[in-house]
């Protein structure tokens, strides 16, 4: 089985990452009753003998001794990482797999990318190599970061570049949190657009996330619970926002609920690679099926259900509702409406007690209301994993390569232009060694080109379908 390494960069990256590891342990604990270190665990965790001080060889079989996350924690401030290392998860992280500094990046992409990138390059490469050495077969790097700040955005994309150079065969999945319109970081449009260029060029797949959407989902759940409409108690640990049952104590921080959603996204994404099922969907298959053209690798994700009621019996009506919800606007993790835009490809990863007939029935049902590009009318990739997430009997992750990401990018571009036209705050960037005005204009045109590619595809939507004529064979 292949392994994956998580690289969490910056404050957001590390906070989300922390939730990911916590929930991953919870998920494996629920499945792995015997405490045996198995293939599923090894995809994200090493098993080491603590007596040899963590430097000894990994234990590949047998009982679980001490699990260590296959992770690299990077932050140019110490606060967040220190908190993680003093919290309940401190033993999960290898103390050598961190890179921290004290002063932070000042919300400046250039500082993160150019200054710290340069400074820590060798250190990062060495630690990545160490991580890779502990892997039997390294399949994928997951980068978690935000786009709007300095470290996650700048240093995060520097690491992305590095991964492509040093490990060209290994997939690079990036989970990027995009800033909202009311972001309190004024320079977030600069940081985001500069980072976008890197994502365009060096990532295999990007899962964009918007805080606004996460926030809306959290609110929706609170409303549902508090309004008493549900009529039945909700299973606490089934909430996509909850940390119940995990190592974290009850007192949750404000962003925890939102970060749990992203953590669940990553867990569901990798579930079929870790656990068995009747139709496996590995990570390399996601990239193969959902990326028809190299630059169009932005995947809109949605998770359902958001919670499960305590009733054990779930009639198939509920199951079908789960599929419908996955396509509704308010379940998407970015502010987008895929139903009214054009699908290039769509993947459905189902977990739990769902069979192929349920999948087919729902695809048939939903297909007519969705618009697929002319050359991919049946563009569905499906996966069935037998192991459901904690607290649920079944769940669905939908990944869409859909032109509905376009508005997000256009807005980003607009916000960028607003600042750039006035040259506001530009000097903070241009001061940095290696940064020039051309970096900005190149990043801008990279984003414009991307938007244009989506525009061209949108133009084909709803138009008359003329299939190309087939090859003629002389009889």
């Amino acid at each position: 089985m292949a392994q994956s390494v998580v690289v969490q960069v910056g404050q957001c990256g590390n906070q989300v990452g922390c939730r990911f590891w916590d929930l991953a342990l919870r998920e494996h604990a629920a499945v792995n009753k015997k405490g045996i270190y198995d293939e599923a665990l090894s995809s994200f965790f090493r098993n080491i003998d603590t007596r040899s001080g963590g430097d000894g060889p990994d234990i590949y079989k047998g009982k679980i001794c001490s699990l260590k996350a296959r992770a690299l924690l990077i932050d140019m401030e110490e606060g967040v990482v220190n908190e993680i290392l003093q919290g309940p998860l401190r033993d999960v992280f290898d103390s050598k797999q961190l890179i921290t500094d004290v002063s932070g990046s000042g919300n400046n992409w250039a500082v993160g990318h150019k200054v710290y990138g340069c400074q820590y390059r060798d250190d990062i490469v060495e630690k990545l190599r160490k991580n890779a050495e502990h892997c039997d077969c390294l399949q994928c790097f997951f980068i978690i970061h935000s786009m709007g700040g300095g470290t996650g955005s700048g240093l995060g994309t520097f690491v992305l570049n590095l991964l492509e150079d040093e490990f060209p065969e290994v997939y690079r999945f990036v989970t990027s949190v995009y800033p909202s319109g009311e972001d309190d970081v004024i320079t977030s449009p600069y940081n985001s657009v500069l980072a976008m260029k890197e994502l365009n060029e060096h990532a295999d797949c990007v899962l964009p996330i918007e805080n606004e959407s996460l926030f809306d989902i959290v609110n929706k759940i609170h409303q549902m619970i508090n309004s008493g409409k549900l009529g039945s108690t909700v299973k606490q640990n089934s909430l996509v926002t909850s940390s119940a049952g995990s190592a974290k104590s009850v007192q949750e921080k404000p962003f925890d609920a939102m970060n749990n959603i992203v953590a669940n996204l990553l867990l569901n994404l990798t579930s079929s690679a870790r656990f068995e099922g009747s139709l496996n969907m590995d990570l390399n298959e996601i990239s193969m099926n959902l990326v028809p053209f190299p630059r169009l690798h932005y995947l809109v994700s949605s998770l359902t259900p958001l919670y499960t009621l305590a009733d054990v019996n779930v009639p198939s009506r509920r199951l079908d509702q789960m599929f419908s919800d996955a396509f509704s606007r308010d379940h998407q993790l970015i502010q987008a409406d895929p139903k009214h835009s054009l699908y290039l490809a769509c993947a459905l990863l189902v977990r739990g007690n769902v069979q192929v007939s349920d999948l087919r029935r729902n695809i048939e049902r939903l297909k007519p209301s969705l618009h697929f590009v002319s050359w991919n009318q049946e563009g569905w990739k499906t996966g069935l994993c037998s192991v459901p997430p904690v607290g649920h009997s079944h769940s669905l992750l939908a990944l869409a390569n859909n032109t509905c990401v376009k508005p997000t990018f256009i807005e980003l571009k607009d916000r960028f232009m607003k600042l750039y036209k006035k040259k506001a705050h530009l000097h903070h960037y241009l001061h940095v060694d290696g940064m020039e005005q051309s970096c900005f204009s190149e990043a801008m045109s990279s984003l414009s080109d991307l938007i244009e590619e989506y525009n061209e595809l949108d133009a084909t939507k709803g138009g008359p379908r003329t299939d190309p004529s087939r090859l003629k064979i002389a009889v």
Partner: protein
Amino acid sequence: MSIVTVQLGQCGNQIGREVFNTICSDARGAHGLCSKKENESYHDTCKERFFFEEESEVPVARAVLVDMEPKVIGQTLSMAARSGCWKYDGHSHFCQKQGSGNNWANGYSVHGPRHKEAIMNLVQKEAEKCDRLSGFFTIMSMAGGTGSGLGAFVTQCLRDAFPTSFILNHVIWPYGTGEVIVQNYNSVLTLSHLYQSSDALLVHENDVIHKICAQLMNIKQISFRDVNQVIAHQLGSVFQPTYAGEGGLLYSRNPLGDLMETLVPHPEFKMLGLRNIPQMPENSLAYSTFTWPGLIKHLRQMLIANAKMEEGIDWQVRPPRLGSSIPSGCSTNKPLHFNTSIANLVILRGKDVHSVDLGSFWDPSLYTSWLNPQDAFHAWKTPRAFNKYEKSASLVSNSQFLLKPLDNVVGKAWNMFASKAYIHQYTKYGIEEEDFLDSFTALEQVISSYTIL
């Protein structure tokens, strides 16, 4: 003679296990409805064909399991062992850590050459365990990366290493509405390559089997396991021992050779479809009776009207009138939905099988003009009932059965190819646009050949 089964990829391994299960439980079953001597002969022949008998242990399937990632093989091995009636050879499997990513090029150009030696060594070992080798039966899906790409490569290797053995590829046609987005590319590449090295392609369509599960078997929540069990039943009905020809005293020894001889007279025509009736839930069997004339009538009409299962057969379709002055090769007078055959094989199992009248299958109008029914139609029989069905009739047909599905797949793949979508994923591993064009050309040729029958 023995058959070595090569199970490729997730689909191949999942189906393979069900096939061995079905064959083993049928052979051991007490539902034979025939004499003890007959039963023993059946049992022994079946054993020799598919299993290697070890001293005091359960029979070991003559199979090689191949997959690029370990989960499915692990499951397959343990489920077989748990059955208690048979198992796989613990060493006869090959897997890697990371799958082929649904990428045909990855399976064919990367994994194939890299692991050729290891895989062929396993095959050689299995072949050597056979007293006499009839040939190879490979099971794969067309939609994914390993079964399809690595499968095509392995088939080529088998042909090179065993030039005188028969190779029958069992190919699973994916659901029309996507299991894999690039399934049409993978299918086109697979079929065109298999056509070069294989002797025949026996096809099962997921959509068809799914319908059988829903409408005939009355299964509410259909799982892949259900689908695979129907497929295994249908395959078992072909591969279990039979007597070839009238008055045979011994069960036929060379199942694959016989199959090829009867069904593939011309290398341009290798696509075989399979129909098996009756098909119903096990608990309904006790309440149903069948007559041979009824079964034969249905089977024949299923052939003519290209019906996929016993329900919804179009009885309006009739064979064309022969004997008019129509030059051979001109098929314009045939009704459009009439299914013309090259060759047909009917396999009958069960009570009173010797009394069956198969005259309707000798009708020359069923067949293409360049073959006469004496050469084109064959029947195999055995009084020994199969898998709890008192009477069971199968039809393996080399006809226009698969013309429409083939045309569909090629059409969709071509449509996608015209936009160049996903091509970069294949060129990354060495499959270029020219390779695609070659494959398209080869398949258009096959389509054309079948169309003008």
